[in-house]
């Protein structure tokens, strides 16, 4: 990616970000291919041993990742707030990042859009954007930290997610909240983070309607989690006790992904 001299306002080269994103798609699929070809190779006794070793190491690393989930759940303080910043510190332009290039950002039609809410909730009606916009709004200027290491400061506005969950009568003793998105992205979070005071169901970016590149119509913003845990273009939210996984998480990113 780009070489950034200024630690405060990293200018991120869009082309380079796309390249990195494409690289990241290419790699997991390469791994899958490798695994499939290894299975074929398993016909030969010679490679049989390598397969077992490789899977053994992968399983062990996954087990440590689950352990790290538990440690993070334990470290997570529901009352501890992420730092907030003055608007003058907002990173401009705020970097675009997804598992696809910027030309593939999904177009969501505002008038026909409905947010589905299912699972362990009392009120399962689908929400229009106007209904969501009529709920009390809050905003925050916080640091978005990417799993790749870079960070950028942005301003998001929307509905407190704890408030939203209580309105739909969610069972807040459930373990997970899952998200399905218009770009086929999906992820899930722990209930403690869902109820954190800085977790926002955002409808605006920098005071304007959330633009498509930042996740129109809606992005869940959690300054207490890494970027890939913050889903964009959300279409469906569900409350569940069954581990829902996530797009990157299923490929090996840590599930809790806390900051």
């Amino acid at each position, binding site marked *: 990616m780009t070489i950034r001299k200024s*630690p405060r306002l990293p200018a991120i080269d869009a082309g380079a970000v796309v390249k990195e994103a494409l690289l*990241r798609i290419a790699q997991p699929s390469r*791994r899958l291919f490798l695994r499939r070809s290894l299975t074929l190779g398993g016909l030969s006794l010679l490679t049989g041993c390598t397969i077992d070793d490789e899977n053994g190491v992968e399983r062990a690393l996954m087990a440590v990742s689950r352990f790290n989930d538990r440690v993070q759940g334990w*470290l997570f303080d529901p009352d501890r707030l*992420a730092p907030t910043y003055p608007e003058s510190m907002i990173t401009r332009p705020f970097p675009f990042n997804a598992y696809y290039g910027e030309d593939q950002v999904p177009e969501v039609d505002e008038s026909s859009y409905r947010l589905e809410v299912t699972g362990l909730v009392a009120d399962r009606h689908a929400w229009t954007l106007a209904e969501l916009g009529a709920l009390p709004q809050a905003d925050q200027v916080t640091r978005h930290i990417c799993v*790749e*290491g870079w960070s950028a400061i942005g301003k998001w506005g929307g509905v407190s997610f704890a408030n939203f969950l209580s309105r739909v009568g969610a069972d807040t003793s459930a373990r997970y909240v899952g998200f399905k998105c218009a770009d086929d992205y999906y992820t899930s979070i722990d209930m403690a983070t869902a109820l954190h005071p800085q977790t926002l169901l955002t409808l605006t970016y920098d005071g304007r309607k959330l633009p498509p590149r930042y996740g129109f119509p809606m992005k869940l913003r959690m300054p207490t989690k890494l970027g890939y845990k913050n889903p964009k273009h959300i279409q469906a939210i569900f409350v569940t006790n069954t581990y829902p996984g996530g797009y990157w998480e299923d490929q090996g*990113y840590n599930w809790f992904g806390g*900051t």
Partner: protein
Amino acid sequence: MRETAVIVDRRPIHPGWLRATHWLNAVAVVILAMSGWRIYNASPFFGFRFADAITLGGWLGGAIQWHFAAMWLLAANGLAYLACNIGSARLLRKFFPLSPRAIVADLRAALRGRLPHEDPSRYNAVQRAAYLFVIADIALLVASGLVLWKSVQFPLLRELLGGYEAARRIHFLSMAALVAFVGIHLAMVALVPRTLLPMIRGR
């Protein structure tokens, strides 16, 4: 003839706990450095990348898994080393006294090839300084790593290190210092290979 008791010191030059923690630490450092380079490559902030061939993990997610597994080994092992070393007063005995003048004198002697290595159970002033430095450096690596891992949950540490982005640079630079130490350390062992066996078998 009066019997003179020759007291043979049967204590090992390096006790077992030291050898165990030393080699476990070497494993952890190698895994952390190589996977860390892969993580750095995902978003390099200096004008270069590490060659993929010398990195570990295959892709960013794999590198992170290695890094966040080996960090437990490094931290637990480091704490065990410090506890034994301080608890047994070995740290005081082995690494002190230490003065800048002694470091300079021993460094001069070493450069002229006149530093004696007769007694492998005694560290010279340069060794003392280098080992104390790397212990402090690893402590800084762990502290800055904690800020990168959980910047929201460790606010005091985060502010002490100047924030998330500053902690990234500190983490990188202390990695570079550690790698430099390892390079010099290995060169020294190659120059004075007599020191290697005691670190493996104790004497």
